[in-house]
């Protein structure tokens, strides 16, 4: 292809993809903030501020000790300058004078912030069938529908509150799926996590509402380290969604979260993510470093965990939502759309660890790379010698937009018994100048053409999202890929 038209194509696509980031504003608010840096006394200070029980402080200190001995992983297809962990603020919370009794007492600036993000927390306007936990920097601001959920025995609260209200559940399950020293970032998170959500679905209950947590990083120098724990007891069912945004700053901010899911016998957890952290500007400056450990444990037989993610934000994404299929006949699923543009880098995929008999897993990964971005799928399917009759199906599709983007696929499969059945399919396709010209020649605009190609490419994943959010995901991708083309 010739250079001139290459340039035209790339600039057309760039314009199309570079919609201004809508959520780049920041909120001015009085903060309770601690000094930057990480050491034992900072951890003690965080724990003290949160008035935590002793077991949690010990959990943190143990994690910190492990973390100090560990090294940042270097195997990802990611290039970024070394993170200075002493230059990060580990606790930043909006100042709250007294304990809140109702939403009316939440700082109106905060309510306005979430309003602007499209997440209404007030009684009148909130979504009628979705309960929301709103996390701002290090703390949870409000959780809606708490009482309504409580009637069904469902606990949905910030993890800080849960530590006080249900310490025995937290002590039992925290770190049970992602051990403290599992990896560098999970160790860091275990040492300094400040808030997150806790959900507990009791036996035989089908959670009547979608549960959702909305994460917002506001402060320029603080990192966000949230912790989510979902426990679904025997025969229960829950669908959970997380969303996230951050203001536009020209420095990089660190987000290192840990999500743990526990599904007991016959339980069903569906976990969906629409990730829209700030990506950095078109020159690659700023944006969130997103290092996340997400893992689900199918402990009881017949249980099922399904991850769906739509990853459109962050400068760097390092994330592998995984399933430990321990119970017999358990089922793990991973559906992913990862869109990268400009200088974004994503190294994402899934791990399916088959331990129980007749366990099944399914991976459907769709990577879209535009601009000069780098999009990597990394998967690990492990069938242990006990997992008689296990089955896995993986499908990894990459779509390249323009000529300068990059896609990699690293599927790793390890099978230790002969009864397993593994299928792996992969494809790479490209939206190039000739496809776009084909659309144009048929009178179809470049926006419509790309939208059609993207939505066709992602359809398999979007149908997995909860209904309320499928439209949102479609809108998000379209937003990132639509615009005026000259």
């Amino acid at each position, binding site marked *: 292809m*010739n250079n*001139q038209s290459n340039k035209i194509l790339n600039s057309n696509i760039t314009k199309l993809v570079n919609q201004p980031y809508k959520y780049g504003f920041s909120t001015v608010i009085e903060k309770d903030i601690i000094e930057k840096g990480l050491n034992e006394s900072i951890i003690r200070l965080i724990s003290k501020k949160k008035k935590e029980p002793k077991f949690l402080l010990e959990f943190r200190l143990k994690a910190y000790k492990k973390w100090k001995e560990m090294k940042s992983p270097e195997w990802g297809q990611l290039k970024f300058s070394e993170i200075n962990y002493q230059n990060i603020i580990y606790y930043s919370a909006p100042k709250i004078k007294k304990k809140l009794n109702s939403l009316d007492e939440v700082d109106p600036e905060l309510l306005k912030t979430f309003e602007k993000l499209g997440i209404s927390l007030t009684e009148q306007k909130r979504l009628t069938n979705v309960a929301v936990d709103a996390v701002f920097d290090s703390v949870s601001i409000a959780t809606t529908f708490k009482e309504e959920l409580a009637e069904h025995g469902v606990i949905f609260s910030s993890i800080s509150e849960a530590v006080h209200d249900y310490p025995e559940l937290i002590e039992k399950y925290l770190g049970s799926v992602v051990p403290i020293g599992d990896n560098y970032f999970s160790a860091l998170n275990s040492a300094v996590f400040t808030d997150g959500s806790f959900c507990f679905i009791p036996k035989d209950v089908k959670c009547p509402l979608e549960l959702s947590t909305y994460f917002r990083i506001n402060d320029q120098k603080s990192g966000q380290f949230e912790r989510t724990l979902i426990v679904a007891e025997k025969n229960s069912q829950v669908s959970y969604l997380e969303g996230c945004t951050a203001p536009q700053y020209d420095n990089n901010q660190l987000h290192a979260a840990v999500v743990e899911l526990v599904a007991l016998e016959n339980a069903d957890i569906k976990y969906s993510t629409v990730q829209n952290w700030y990506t950095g500007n078109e020159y690659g400056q700023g944006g969130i470093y997103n290092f996340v450990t997400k893992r689900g444990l199918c402990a009881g037989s017949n249980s099922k965990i399904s991850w769906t993610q739509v990853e459109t934000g962050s400068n760097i994404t390092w994330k592998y939502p995984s399933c430990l299929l321990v119970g017999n006949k358990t089922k793990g699923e991973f559906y992913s759309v990862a869109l990268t543009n400009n200088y974004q880098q994503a190294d994402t995929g899934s791990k399916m660890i088959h331990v129980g008999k007749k366990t099944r897993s399914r991976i459907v990964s769709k990577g879209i790379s535009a601009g000069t971005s780098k999009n990597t799928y990394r998967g690990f399917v492990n069938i242990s010698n006990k997992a008689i009759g296990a089955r896995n199906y993986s499908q990894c599709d990459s779509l390249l937009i323009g000529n300068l983007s990059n896609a990699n696929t690293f599927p790793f499969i390890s099978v230790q018994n002969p009864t397993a059945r593994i299928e792996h399919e992969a494809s790479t396709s490209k939206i190039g100048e000739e496809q776009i010209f084909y659309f144009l020649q*048929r*009178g179809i605009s470049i926006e*419509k053409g790309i939208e*059609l*190609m993207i939505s066709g490419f992602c359809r398999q994943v979007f149908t997995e999202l909860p209904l309320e959010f499928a439209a949102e995901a479609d809108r998000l991708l379209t937003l990132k890929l639509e615009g005026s083309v000259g």
Partner: protein
Amino acid sequence: MNLNPLILEIKNLKAQINENEILKDLNLEIRKGEIHAIMGPNGSGKSTFSKVIAGHPAYQVLSGEILFKGSNILNLDPEERAHLGIFLAFQYPIEIPGVSNEDFLRLAYNSKQKFLNKPELDPIEFFRVINEKLQLVDMSPVFLSRNVNEGFSGGEKKRNEILQMILLDSELSILDETDSGLDIDALKIISNGINKFMNQDKAIILITHYQRLLEYVRPNFVHVMQDGKIIKTGGPDLAKELELKGYEWLK
């Protein structure tokens, strides 16, 4: 003598790609109701000619004019030219992953409807329209659910181009080697489609290497292109002569 209005006038057209001048002073006039065949050796500029008329961004026009129904189209985007009534059947129709033929065809049809201020069709209404056109090129409705050109045989791809031509009902259609790579049955089907489509309000340019197509689709004029220029124009017999003598004879 055909005194229908002119649909396409090309005057002293020079165009390049990669700073390589391909079209060198090309002149051509086409009236409504006419079929023109353009023949010529490989590399003579036939495909460039079709891409330049359609407005492919890789090609730059250096000088000259292209008038479509009397107005200059050189400053128009490819999709505007398509809306005005210029259709290009591609020599190598490209595969479009993830997009069903049905969605693609409906979007193309509705884009044109919108341009003409006519109502856009929903999938059910559209199915009726497309189903009727499918029969003209002997294609089964099954192929609507397949992705655009993905896994299509060479013949199916070419038939799909003709289907789109019929669906969009453009006034000027340029068929770039639509006949190459077709077996005799497919050639008959396609020729049949073209003949049913053609009428006094339209014009067609057939770019071809072979006289074979011209036995089924009878042209009014045959032009020979060489080195970016039209060096000879004649009637259908010229094609037969070329088949016998080759292009060297014209030098």
